[in-house]
């Protein structure tokens, strides 16, 4: 085998290996198994509920599952591969707004798709959403907090305070 042949084979092998690593994966591979093969119905669309409590929410994605219900998907960029309570609240608010505006059935579970800051998708988390009555109670508590009628509680995650711009005036107990 000539030197040229070896060089060509080596070059092709390097290109194939690089291509394999650098080629972006198709979006379907990043979805949870439940949503593969389902239809994307809404993407980056704003919804609003009406009534005494009006919730506005932008839905990242909503897929229609086999039963006809919409399943929400929210993308989050973070270094840790997990879903937080704030994700559940946000998705629950999206659910309420979407159901109110479109009158469609939305599943009581949703998915948080996590992505690292370098753009690598790390996976999906299935979360159970809050009931609308619990969400309304949360809105009520928020209004009381803003009106100064109840004492705001500090976060239960002290690590959050290190990144917070209000850490000085707040002076949390663990500081």
């Amino acid at each position, binding site marked *: 085998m000539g030197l040229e042949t070896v060089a060509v084979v080596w070059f092709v092998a390097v290109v194939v290996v690089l291509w394999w690593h650098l080629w*972006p994966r198709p979006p379907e591979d990043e979805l949870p198994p439940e949503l593969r093969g389902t239809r994307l119905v809404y*993407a980056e669309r704003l919804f609003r509920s009406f009534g005494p409590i009006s919730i506005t929410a932008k839905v*990242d994605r909503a897929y229609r599952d086999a039963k006809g219900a919409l399943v929400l998907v929210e993308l989050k*960029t973070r270094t840790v591969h997990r879903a937080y309570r704030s994700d559940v609240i946000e998705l629950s608010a999206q659910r309420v707004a979407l159901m109110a505006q479109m009158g469609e059935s939305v599943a009581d579970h949703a998915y948080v798709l996590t992505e690292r*800051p370098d753009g690598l998708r790390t996976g999906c988390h299935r979360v159970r959403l809050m009931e609308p009555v619990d969400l309304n109670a949360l809105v009520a508590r928020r209004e009381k*907090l803003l009106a100064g009628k109840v004492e705001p509680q500090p976060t239960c995650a002290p690590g959050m305070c290190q990144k917070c711009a209000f850490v000085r*005036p707040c002076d949390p107990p663990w500081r």
Partner: protein
Amino acid sequence: MAELKKHMHQKVTVGASELAQMGVCERLVVFEHRYGRQRTAEQQRAAMRGLRAHKRFYRERQGDSARQGRCFVGHFRYWARKLQRAWYRLIRYVARWLQAPESRDGP
């Protein structure tokens, strides 16, 4: 709900992301209400990363539509863009590799 109406005499409008802050820290909700949203440099960078990720996520939906066989043009554009992006990434990778021969050759 009755309790809510008792405390509020006007209509309440709230965004999903504002409400989500309640799951982060109640004190943060109050501070942001009083003094406006303030972000550290790291938080601003994270927000920009999030915006870019969402734009990319939105563009990827064309792949989803194409997968469902609803749009041939969308399918073609999606895979052409993927091919282009992969090609540029490959070129960048090879260029970086060629520009640093001393690091490959060792001491």
